[in-house]
């Protein structure tokens, strides 16, 4: 890479070199290349989860653009006259008819449509998995809190993108999905009725909603998503990627292959692999067969009416409410069967958003953290995460309560009752188990550092005693097991005016909760003591 404009033109310069000089002299790109081209990018499979999301989003953009050339977001009624026999002559909206035309009358149209939908499911799933990785390795700690917020916003926007897209074909499944959204909105106190009325442009279903969702789906939401992804990535470059503890890797360096060429090859290749996997799935597996569902009509409904997976937790929350949670008070209807799920999900979401700030406040740690934690070394955080995952999984499973019932020969009432218990008790059980498992693993790590690996070799001592030989760790392997910090519970101290504030008490209480049970890493002294005890 040439770094500065050169005035001496050497005749033997290669084509690439001349081209880069040509571009650079007009853009000053050399500075960027110099800065970024040889940046080290830490290498670990779990660091690629975000890339899955990014690349599936690119696939969504490409396939979605193709679809916009054919899809017509109109709810005007037409009689279908395309190729699919069981819908011939049926009255449906232009949106539905054009989606059927994409599927049946445009070569490769169904392929692109299926790829778009599969990629959307993958997009949200990859974001979810990526967030779990960030959470469980503490990669949200200073200086990365903002990126946690941006990433979280992207998760919500991705769900919005997904739901608006799911609703566009105006088929029976998505129409009933919108019907549920309408009912949900109407249940919100004070603003509900009018919000629904304005959203649907009058009474449900109206003739406006598909066009409105289309604008959101292809203009507003993607614009915000693209902008936030850009900021997200710029911050990744500014922060440099986290890395796992390993010999030579420190808080002051970022170790890995350079962006050019190895990382670029791996990431570029990975994009094509994801694109290819999605193409494979789209060519072999049906998704959202709208021709089965038929056009939206408020009277029919299909058994097994469910939203796409990422909305499942909200649908499941609605299903888990016991009968009777609705009251008339002050001559107004209070639909707690709708409000309670909304509020519970709202609190859950707020806790997820706020977690990095809560943990930072409890620890009072103002240092930058660039070494990602092993989940076992932050037992309370890992346990909280496990509890959250269990809560979410319970809600999510509830969205398929009917399918669970038929496929496991259960009663749907039994499934609902079991999941009600799981959502309430499950998080506590998961918390307890995860915390114990983490601490047990930490203890095992200590054992291994102090006494070495079990080699499996049995030796008979001269005295007739059998022992298993323990293989001591070398310093590199040992480093991975001892290079973490533990925190101690906060001692309450009076402030300058001799008072202990409520905030201090709360922080001390939470700090006790977080760090009461802790396993400190082995120190040099302990290892020496252990060795001298053996010999």
């Amino acid at each position, binding site marked *: 890479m040439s770094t500065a404009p050169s005035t001496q033109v050497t005749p033997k310069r290669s084509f690439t070199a001349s081209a880069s000089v040509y571009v650079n002299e007009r853009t000053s790109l050399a500075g960027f290349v110099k800065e970024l081209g040889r940046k080290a990018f830490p290498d670990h499979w779990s660091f690629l989860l975000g890339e899955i999301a990014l690349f599936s989003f690119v696939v969504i953009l490409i396939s979605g653009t193709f679809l916009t050339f054919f899809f017509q977001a109109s709810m005007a009624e037409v009689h279908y006259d395309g190729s699919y026999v069981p819908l011939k002559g049926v009255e449906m909206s232009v949106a539905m008819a054009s989606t059927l035309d994409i599927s049946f009358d445009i070569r490769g149209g169904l392929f692109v449509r299926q790829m778009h939908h599969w990629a959307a499911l993958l997009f949200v799933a990859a974001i979810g998995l990526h967030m779990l990785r960030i959470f469980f390795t503490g990669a949200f700690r200073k200086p990365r809190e903002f990126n946690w917020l941006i990433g979280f916003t992207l998760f919500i926007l991705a769900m919005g993108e997904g739901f608006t897209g799911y609703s566009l074909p105006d088929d029976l499944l998505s129409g009933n999905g919108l019907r549920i959204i309408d009912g949900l909105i109407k249940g919100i106190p004070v603003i509900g009725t009018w919000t629904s009325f304005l959203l649907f442009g009058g009474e449900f279903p109206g003739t406006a909603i598909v066009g409105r969702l289309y604008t959101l789906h292809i203009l507003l939401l993607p614009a915000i998503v693209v902008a936030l992804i850009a900021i997200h990535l710029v911050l990744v470059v500014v922060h440099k990627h986290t890395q796992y503890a390993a010999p030579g890797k420190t808080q002051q360096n970022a170790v890995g292959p350079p962006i050019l060429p190895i990382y670029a090859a791996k990431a570029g290749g990975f994009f094509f692999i994801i694109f290819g996997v999605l193409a494979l799935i789209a060519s072999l597996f049906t998704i959202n067969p709208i021709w089965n569902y*038929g056009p939206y009509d408020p009277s029919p409904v*299909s058994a097994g009416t469910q939203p796409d997976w990422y909305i499942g937790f909200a649908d499941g929350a609605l299903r888990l409410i016991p009968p009777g949670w609705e009251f008339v008070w002050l001559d107004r209807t209070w639909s707690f069967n709708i409000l309670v799920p909304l509020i519970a999900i709202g609190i859950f979401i707020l806790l997820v958003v706020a977690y990095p700030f809560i943990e930072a406040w409890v620890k009072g740690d103002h240092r930058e953290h660039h070494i990602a934690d092993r989940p076992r070394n932050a037992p309370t955080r890992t346990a909280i995460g496990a509890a959250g995952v269990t809560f979410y999984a319970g809600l999510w499973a509830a969205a398929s309560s*009917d399918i669970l019932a038929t496929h496991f020969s259960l009663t749907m009432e039994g499934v609902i009752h079991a999941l009600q218990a799981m959502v309430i008790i499950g998080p506590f059980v998961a918390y307890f188990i995860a915390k114990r498992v983490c601490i047990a693993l930490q203890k095992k790590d200590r054992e291994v550092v102090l006494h070495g690996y079990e080699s499996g070799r049995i030796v008979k001592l001269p005295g007739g005693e059998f022992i298993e030989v323990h293989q001591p760790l070398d310093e590199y392997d040992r480093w991975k097991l001892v290079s973490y910090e533990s925190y101690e519970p906060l001692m309450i101290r009076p402030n300058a005016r001799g008072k202990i504030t409520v905030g201090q008490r709360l922080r001390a209480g939470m700090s006790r909760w977080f760090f009461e049970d802790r396993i400190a890493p082995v120190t040099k002294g302990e290892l020496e003591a252990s060795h001298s005890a053996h010999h």
Partner: protein
Amino acid sequence: MNRSKRRTGRRHPLATVALLALGLVFTGGAYAALSSGTAAQAEAEPTSQETIEQGKKLFQANCATCHGLEAQGTNNGPSLIGVGAAAVDFQVGTGRMPMQMQGPQAQEKPPQFTDEQTKQLAYYVASLGPGPDIPADSLVNGGGDAANGAELFRINCAMCHNVAGAGGALTEGKFAPPLTDVSGVHIYEAMVTGPQNMPVFNDLNISPEDKRDVITYLKYVQDNRSPGGFELGSLGPVAEGLFIWIFGLGAIVAVTVWITAKSN
């Protein structure tokens, strides 16, 4: 084509799996062929006195314990007087009757009687009181209007049986069975008789021609695989979500491990 013999005596680890899968496919195919065979022979036979007598003997030996010696009903089973030949042909022809045990609903199983015996039972019961008859072949052969049938199916049937006929859950462990390999005759008979908890769809609700259209649609769905590829059970978004998490994301995460592993 010269198919090369196995060079080594060792079987491929997946061979057993493949064999099993093949076996299952053949059994399923044979079963499907058998049940569609039942459909083809559904034409009404002349109801001679002899048929009815044979049916009565079969009835008293196999059904009377629950339904009573004269089909008048007992505490364990309803009266069959006036249910018609269609009800018997459906219940016995799909193996639901005789029931193995009392449960939330009678389970489908391989039929216990031959087609001839089923017909004898049906005409015996029909002789006890007037009821819906076994439909004529022209109504169940799938020669109607699939589009009209599909619309009627969505309005009257899909909420229990799913839009693609994949079945669905009912209350307290009951379920609406999948219609993916049910014969036209049995679909017709189920509509007119309302077996188990299914409502009755009489000819004034859905006319015989409309019933033929519904069957035409279901046959269309049975005969035409989804244009998009494997249907994943036609279960909708739940199956799709599980698939993308387990196979889509699973495969890609496996690739990430390969990408970041040291090359060797």
